[in-house]
């Protein structure tokens, strides 16, 4: 029972993929190629009932069709179409026609006449709609052919009067996608009336079916996307649709209004029931703002999103969005924001204690109050306190975009953004913090605002805190009290969450360097110096003290008077920190000290950088490898590898390059070593033991090449060729080692064939790069390819062996930017002595938190591996949503791993580590039918060929207890 339960749990919670080998083998040969259409024909003739025929068609649709045979298949399908009485079969045929006409390399103009023909005789609405869809597919396939397009548009217009909404929908879709862009159709079309596609589509804005109305608006938007300039008259029509009963219509109408407002921002429209006129973009802005309080949240999200991109709107309209005229008992009331601002400017700290400070003030003229302005009044106020967090997020995003383009608006929306820091949903809080960071150039925080911002530092979510640190890095603070407050709160944060140390230090670094003059008056207090007395020297290892010093030193950089306030030990501490935390502490011009030549090194370009030069030189040394004897070559390689590794450790910016080249050289070293084995000189059967060395070398080279290919970001095609070449050599080595050590010829057959296939594959993939590989192993091998194909395995092995020994060392060109992927598991920390206890057969969730650097496409490649003490390994695919992207090249994985096992007698450790999954076949060019057919291309790429561990493993103490009865 427990086992069964466990299995079920696994099925539900984790996706353990077994690597299937046979999948690759399935698409090897295709012998049934020519009989495709014939088979279909026979099948369809055999079919006795419509259900049968449908089954055949469904089966047929699962298999791909080549471009050459499409036409034949289409003819047969059409033939059956004419005969068929059952509408469902006709529907399927029609849909197949559409699919087939999408096949790459097939020109569908030949079937168009037939399609239009059958359209005219069709009675069933569903089939009609499907046929129109097919025509759409044909039309989009032939974008150049104007005549065909016009004809299709005619057909669509004819069927627009159909009673079924599905048919009308498709017609409108067709018009939207194919309606001609030039209005001068009359020139070539004799007698054809000018079809104003926009007019025709516009007429269906008032169709009785909401689905058709939506389709009409979508078609209009499609026209716009295709570059047709919409008429301004559409604006009024679209405005009417804003009060439609159906949400999808309203949602589409909002989009349309937005489009028109972007096209004609400056035109003037009248305000109904008054003589005034305003700019169209302002009017549209007001209307979309009104939709922010729509009944349907889908519309609200749509409206809030679009508001963000309306940058041309006049500023007074924009500022209205944040204004909701308050009143209480018909008397004007000031908002809390206004009150806070006033209190602040009057120099009084907001106490909130004064009785009646929110008492309503002046009386309002009842006639002047307008409760539902069509204008933009309070749109964002509503949006930000919406029920659905989707709307709130959209509103925050829109605020962000508008504030970026208008500094005055940024200043105004600040209060609202600060308020959002207290939202109940973490995502919204995070989003508003990010937004604030983006607009921080335009704003200065008031003290009371800063207070609210800093309160969020106590948030228990690490994401929020880190985002807030980043926000503080680029915030402008107006007063010295503000800086002090920020420091105090950050230190509080530090004591509460010691893991935030680095982030806080970094934050203080920027805070200091941005506000030197504000920090200056605080220095004595912060360093607790006294004019007369010496104070105790603070502990140098205290993170809080370091934090304070980081702030001060960074401020001192641009404030030369500051060092005068330092006490003696401060200078000593400076020297220490400058060495130990050089990325946080800048070089200072201190009295009585010489300036370190840091300013000089800053303007040296990377190529003149001595360490870079050193790297170049050591790599150049290796060029001469060819001319050395094996012993010397090995020594040189070993030396260079050592140098590179050391260099990588010293210079973090060169670590990627150094590691990459060192790995390559190590491969070469292994290869040379393997070829130096005595094995080759002695009769085969005697040296089974030594062969271990050589085959191990081959295996290791393979592993290293996979690492080189997939663990580094920024690897270009020229490097990939070299890497694959190295791998090919390793495979050759493997082949000859096996040939030497195994008896009998039978297994060799398979191996040789496989190897030759690999060579062939290599040639196909890198045909363009072959000229660069002169004199290399593969170059020579390809020369002899015809001979190899016909020779016996033993001979092949012999040839390969000599080739391998003669092959020259290929120089690896270095890419511009290369970084090694790395991962650090932050959680679980692996220090706990308390085992995680759970009942065997059930699962326990383990929180995993890791940072990933320089991983491309982590959603697909990064996996979590759990190794149980019994050797059982389990691979877990984290969900795509578990990955965050805090910055370029950085990712954060926060996921849960489910562990389960049968009962143990005592607690034991499991290992958790991260793997990088790869699949070298993804470089294969894709076959053309994959996109057209119904086989999803996902299946192809998601197959994992192998994995590379790229993080240190963390041990977790667990204890599955036997279930209690």
């Amino acid at each position, binding site marked *: 029972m427990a086992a069964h339960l466990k299995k079920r749990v696994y099925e539900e919670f984790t996706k353990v993929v077994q690597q299937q080998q046979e999948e690759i083998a399935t698409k090897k040969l295709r012998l049934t190629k020519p009989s495709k259409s014939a088979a279909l024909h026979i099948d369809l003739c055999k079919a006795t009932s419509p259900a049968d025929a449908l089954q055949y068609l469904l089966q047929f649709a699962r298999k791909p069709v080549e471009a050459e045979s499409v036409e034949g298949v289409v003819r047969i399908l059409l033939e059956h179409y004419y005969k068929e009485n059952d509408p469902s079969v006709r529907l399927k045929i029609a849909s197949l026609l559409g699919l087939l006409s999408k096949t790459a390399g097939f020109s569908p103009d030949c079937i168009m006449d037939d399609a239009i023909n059958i359209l005219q005789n069709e009675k069933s609405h569903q089939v009609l709609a499907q046929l129109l869809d097919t025509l759409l597919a044909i039309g989009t396939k032939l974008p150049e052919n104007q005549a065909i397009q016009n004809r299709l548009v005619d057909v669509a217009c004819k069927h627009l009067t159909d009673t079924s909404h599905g048919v009308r929908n498709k017609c409108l879709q067709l018009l939207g996608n194919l309606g001609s862009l030039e209005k001068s159709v009359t020139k070539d079309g004799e007698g054809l009336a000018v079809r104003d596609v926009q007019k025709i589509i516009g007429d269906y804005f008032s169709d009785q079916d909401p689905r058709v109305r939506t389709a009409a608006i979508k078609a209009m938007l499609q026209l716009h996307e295709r570059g047709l300039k919409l008429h301004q008259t559409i604006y009024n029509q679209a405005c009417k649709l804003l009060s439609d009963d159906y949400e999808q219509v309203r949602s589409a109408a909002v989009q349309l209004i937005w489009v028109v407002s972007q096209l004609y921002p400056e035109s003037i429209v009248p305000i109904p029931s008054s003589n005034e006129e305003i700019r169209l973009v302002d009017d549209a802005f007001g209307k979309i703002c009104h939709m922010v309080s729509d009944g349907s949240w889908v519309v609200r999200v749509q409206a809030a999103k679009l508001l963000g991109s309306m940058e041309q709107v006049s500023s007074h309209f924009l500022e209205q969005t944040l204004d909701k005229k*308050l009143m209480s008992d018909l008397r004007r009331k000031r908002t*809390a924001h206004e009150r806070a601002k006033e209190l602040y400017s009057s120099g009084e700290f907001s106490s909130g204690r004064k009785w009646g400070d929110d008492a309503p003030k002046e009386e309002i003229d009842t006639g002047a109050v307008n409760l*539902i302005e069509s204008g933009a009044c309070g749109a964002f106020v509503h949006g930000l*306190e919406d029920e659905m967090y989707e709307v709130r997020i959209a509103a925050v995003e829109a605020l962000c975009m508008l504030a970026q383009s208008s500094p005055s608006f940024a200043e105004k929306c600040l209060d609202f953004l600060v308020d959002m820091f207290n939202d109940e949903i973490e995502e919204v809080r995070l989003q508003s913090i990010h937004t604030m960071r983006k607009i921080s150039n335009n704003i200065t925080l008031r003290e009371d605002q800063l207070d609210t911002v800093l309160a969020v530092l106590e948030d228990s979510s690490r994401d929020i805190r880190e985002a807030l640190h980043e926000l503080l890095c680029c915030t402008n603070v107006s007063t010295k009290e503000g800086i002090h407050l920020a420091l105090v709160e950050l230190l509080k944060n530090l004591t509460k969450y010691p893991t935030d140390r680095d982030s806080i230090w970094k934050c203080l670094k920027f805070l200091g360097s941005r506000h030197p003059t504000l920090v200056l008056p605080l220095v004595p207090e912060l360093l607790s110096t006294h004019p007369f007395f010496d104070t105790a020297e603070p502990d140098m290892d205290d993170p809080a003290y370091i934090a304070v010093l980081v702030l001060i030193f960074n401020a001192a950089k641009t404030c030369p008077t500051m060092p005068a306030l330092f006490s003696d030990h401060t200078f000593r501490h400076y020297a220490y920190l400058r060495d130990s935390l050089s990325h946080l502490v800048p070089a200072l011009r201190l009295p009585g000290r010489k300036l370190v030549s840091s300013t000089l090194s800053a303007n040296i370009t990377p190529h003149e950088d001595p360490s870079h030069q050193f790297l170049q030189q050591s790599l150049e040394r290796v060029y001469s490898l060819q001319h050395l004897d094996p012993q010397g070559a090995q020594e040189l390689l070993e030396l260079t590898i050592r140098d590179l590794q050391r260099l990588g450790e010293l210079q973090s910016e060169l670590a990627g390059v150094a590691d990459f080249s060192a790995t390559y050289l190590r491969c070469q070293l292994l290869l040379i070593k393997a070829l130096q084995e005595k094995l080759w000189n002695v009769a085969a059967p005697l040296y089974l033991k030594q062969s271990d060395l050589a085959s191990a070398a081959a295996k290791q080279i393979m592993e290293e090449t996979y690492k080189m290919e997939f663990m580094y970001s920024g690897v270009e095609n020229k490097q990939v060729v070299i890497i694959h070449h190295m791998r090919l050599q390793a495979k050759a080595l493997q082949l000859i080692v096996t040939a030497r050590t195994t008896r009998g010829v039978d297994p060799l057959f398979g191996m040789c064939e496989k190897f030759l296939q690999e060579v062939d594959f290599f040639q196909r993939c890198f045909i363009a790069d072959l000229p660069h590989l002169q004199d290399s192993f593969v170059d020579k091998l390809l020369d002899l390819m015809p001979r190899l194909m016909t020779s016996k395995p033993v001979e092949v092995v012999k040839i390969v062996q000599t080739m391998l020994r003669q092959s020259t060392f290929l120089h690896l060109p270095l890419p511009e930017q290369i970084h090694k992927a790395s991962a650090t598991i932050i959680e679980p920390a692996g220090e706990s002595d308390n085992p995680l206890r759970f009942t065997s057969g059930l699962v326990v969730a383990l929180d995993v938190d890791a940072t990933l650097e320089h991983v491309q496409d982590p959603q697909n490649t990064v996996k979590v591996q759990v190794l149980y003490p019994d050797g059982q390994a389990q691979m877990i695919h984290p969900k795509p949503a578990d990955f965050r992207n805090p910055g370029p090249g950085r990712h954060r994985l926060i996921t849960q791993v489910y562990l389960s096992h049968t009962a143990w007698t005592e607690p034991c450790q499991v290992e958790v580590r991260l793997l990088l999954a790869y699949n070298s076949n993804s470089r294969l060019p894709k076959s053309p039918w994959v996109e057209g057919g119904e086989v999803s291309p996902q299946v192809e790429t998601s197959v994992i060929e192998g994995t590379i561990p790229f993080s240190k493993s963390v041990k977790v103490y667990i204890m599955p207890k036997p279930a209690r009865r």
Partner: protein
Amino acid sequence: MPEIRVTPLGAGQDVGRSCILVSIGGKNVMLDCGMHMGFNDDRRFPDFSYITRNGRLTDFLDCVIISHFHLDHCGALPYFSEMVGYDGPIYMTHPTQAICPILLEDYRKIAVDKKGEANFFTSQMIKDCMKKVVAVHLHQTVQVDDELEIKAYYAGHVLGAAMFQIKVGSESVVYTGDYNMTPDRHLGAAWIDKCRPNLLITESTYATTIRDSKRCRERDFLKKVHEAVERGGKVLIPVFALGRAQELCILLETFWERMNLKAPIYFSTGLTEKANHYYKLFITWTNQKIRKTFVQRNMFEFKHIKAFDRAFADNPGPMVVFATPGMLHAGQSLQIFRKWAGNEKNMVIMPGYCVQGTVGHKILSGQRKLEMEGRQVLEVKMQVEYMSFSAHADAKGIMQLVGQAEPENVLLVHGEAKKMEFLKQKIEQEFRVNCYMPANGETVTLPTSPSIPVGISLGLLKREMAQGLLPDAKKPRLLHGTLIMKDSNFRLVSSEQALKELGLAEHQLRFTCRVHLHDPRKEQETALRVYSHLKSVLKDHCVQHLPDGSVTVESILIQAAAHSEDPGTKVLLVSWTYQDEELGSYLTSLLKKGLPQGAT
């Protein structure tokens, strides 16, 4: 003329004892059945004798609908159903059904046990009354009888609060109860579809207020509480056991957790514990956040909030206490208030609306010396704060709801007359609909013009559609058919089918007309001339000259005969059926003009 009649028995230009009678399509519905907080005599319950004059309640009322569990909306229910006597169905939502009896029982205890009132309803009566309740789901259409149907919409305000649509035929009324258009920490916002009722009866508590964003309110509240606690004061928050209390609890709970505060928060026991239990249960009625996270942790399982004991009130040090009732008119909250009022470090935060006459209203209006029972005078030194946390829609919210529902008429209840006046004017001005605000006992009569549905056969519809051009939504279309009325059921069918169904033979209706033509020629020739003339004029029609000398245009027959007296004049006999009326009259007028002279 059909009409909708509305009579408020309570809540007409007043807040408290909501009770509104609606007659729609011959059905009588009572909306809410509440009590008034401000009175302790007969005036606390609605005056049901208004109905009982005409007989028993059950005979008169088709159903009773309770919008939510607040006592001013359901407090008179046991009195109404058990003491006055009503046996019909009472509709309310599931949470209301669950929580309502707890509140009634509490109310009864205070009235009977504390104040010693006699002739009050008993616990058994509450139980009996609740047996008559039918619970409804949101958006579920409940058929009360064959014609009357009701449907509930989400209203925010408190857990389980609903707006109800009452529909008879094509006439409908929407009653909002109390609602809130801005979501809060535990409930979502009210929502209604475009149901276009004939009448929308809406509450108007905050008719003249537009509120600040709720975020500022929340922040202010937290700040005030935090500061009071930091300087060692005690904070009293009088609340009603359910509703605001839970929202504020969630707010304080999350704040305490975030700021890591240690001061205790207490919640008066009994009622609230039970109520919290229901809040945990009815998660689907709460807001998005709580609904989404309850799998990990049910937000109503508080960590920092503990049950209150009377002895705690004298404990030294800071604390926050939620105590009932919310208007400081009785009970625990008043007791604690008396204890703490003398210390200026303490604070009382009134989170909601206070009815005139209560202590809450007095201190809010600035009174510092209160006369208590027994001629005692209580001096209030503690700080008094007012935070508008009341979950009613403000003026903008009311307008928003009116905009959403698109009613034909609006009726305001549950508010003060002066404030209603302003909102009434605004509604009339901006939506151009009639707005009413009747006082208690005053009847509003709305004439309605119900639409009468008529069935049409598909064949006829298609045939008529095919004849005309595209259907155009803006223009009415003419349709030929026969209207059959049978057992209060209307159908439009083609005339052939109507004849068949009714077993009648078709009557031919022919019009004949004589046209005198001055033409000396022979009859045959005249006929020929007529023929050629018509042929040239009526190009689209089939004009034939028959061998017997007559001319036909489509089915219209024209014969020429000599005038019996004047041989120089010929008489043209034109004859057509009713169906060809249009063409026939056209032909006659054409012929009356005479034949062209040039023709021979």
